Every structure is written in C-alpha cells, then in structure tokens.
C-alpha cells in the first residue's frame, strides 16, 4: 500500500455506506472505467458488510497502488472475528452461515482482479483485493 491510503473503522451499517463512498471517490480519482468502478464498489460493499456481520466489525483501508506497468486500487478488509474454518466452502456460491444469499465472498472475488484471504479459526480474517486500471 502506498502513502495515500485511508482507513475507515467498520462498526455500523452507516460505516458500510462510508466505505462504498470512499471506494467510489478513489476509483474515480484513479480513472477506473464506469463498469470497473461499479464492480469495485460492489465488491467493497459485500466485503465491508462481511467484516461487520461475520467479523463483528473491523477496518477497511483503501489506497492506490502502482506496479511497474499499471496503476490500481487496493483495499484491505480486516477483522478480529472468529475467522473462517473452511475457506473452500465459504468461497462456494450459495453457501452462507448468516442467512444471506451466499454470494458476498464468492461474488466479490469475481468482481476484482486479485483476491487474497488470510484467515484461521480464532485469528480473524483479512481480505485484500486489487483492481487494476485497464
């Protein structure tokens, strides 16, 4: 993450809205296409809600990144919640423990270019997503 990242605590529904608005702002600044902005904001909305509902709250950090060949946006969702015991199952379309549609995690992964997840039972969950400018 570069020097310009911004951190938002996620503890309420309102914070999820704030995450969406911040990601939208950064995506516009980074000149992502409209469809890519929409995909990234949607993915961020799903993951921020997971941080709140399943992780019991946490933080979302949004920043611009630059590789040798292109620029992009990286977002890190971190919580100190129960963690995910069976990651393969959690990433399956339609699987949910929370009464949702079970599309949050698996759907968000499809909407971004890079998706990394670091979790263990009792150790919380950290998800890092990246969307590159085309």
């Amino acid at each position, binding site marked *: 993450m570069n020097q310009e990242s911004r951190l938002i605590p996620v503890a309420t*529904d309102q914070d999820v809205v704030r995450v969406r608005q911040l990601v939208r702002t950064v995506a516009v600044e980074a000149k992502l296409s409209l469809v890519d902005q*929409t995909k990234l904001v949607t993915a961020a909305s799903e993951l921020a809600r997971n941080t709140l509902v399943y992780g019991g709250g946490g933080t979302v950090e949004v920043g611009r990144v630059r590789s040798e060949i292109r620029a992009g946006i990286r977002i890190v969702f971190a919580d100190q919640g129960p963690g995910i015991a069976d990651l393969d199952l959690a990433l399956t379309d339609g699987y949910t423990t929370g009464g949702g549609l079970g599309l949050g995690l698996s759907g968000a992964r499809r909407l971004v270019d890079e998706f990394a997840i670091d979790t263990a039972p009792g150790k919380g969950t950290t998800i890092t997503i990246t969307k590159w400018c085309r």
Partner: protein
Amino acid sequence: MERVPVLKIGDILLVSIQIDMEDQVALQLQEDLAERIVATGCHGVIIDISTLDIVDSFVGRTLATIASVSRVLDAETVVVGMRPAVAITLVELGLSLPGIRTALNVELGIEMLARSRAETEVELDDEDDADQAAVTTS
C-alpha cells in the same frame, strides 16, 4: 434513520430510491411497502433504481423479497431504471434477480403493469363466463 418515500399514483405505488441505502433502510422499505399495498389495495409497485450506482447482494435480495411479498398481496412489482454498469456487475456477482420483472424506465414500467393487469382481468372475466355457461346449461 432515513426513509424511502412511497408515493401512490392511481393504482400504483411508486418508490424512487434516491439515497445510498443503509441495510436497515432497505429492510424498512420492505415493511413500509407491504403495509402500503394492504392499506391502499394497489395492484402495482414500481421501484425506480436509476439513481443507484450499485446494487449489491443485500439490495438485490431486498428487491427480490419485495417482489415476492407483493405477489402474495396481489400486487405486481416492476424494477425500473437499472444502469448498464449495475446490470453487468449484478450478473457477474451471480445475482440475476429471478422472479423480478424489469423495465427500462418508469413509463415502460407503468405500461407493463397496465398490460399484465388487463390480462389478469380478461382471465377472470373468462372464468366468470365459463361459470355462468355451466350454470345455464345444467
């Protein structure tokens, strides 16, 4: 908490979502609409999402639930005004909104509701005629 207004226009309830809804606001809208359908006896609901720049799985599920609840209460729901980027994202997310009728704008949504209402009434009339015919021939 903000609330999404529900307007009654003739036989239709019109909802235009103009804010970035918190999840609780979406759930409140679901309840408000069910109550207004019963209170007004309206047979059609139009939900305009043209100002929404994203529809995530929560909002998508809320729209689907509203459509199902409306149907049980004898009202048809049409979601109108979805932006192209939102449609692309929704499908990629894995949400194709089965069971939800859509139209490109409010005007076409109203036409769709009027057509489906007219068809329902024709069917009902046909059934009445059939009943009467059965009575007279017996």
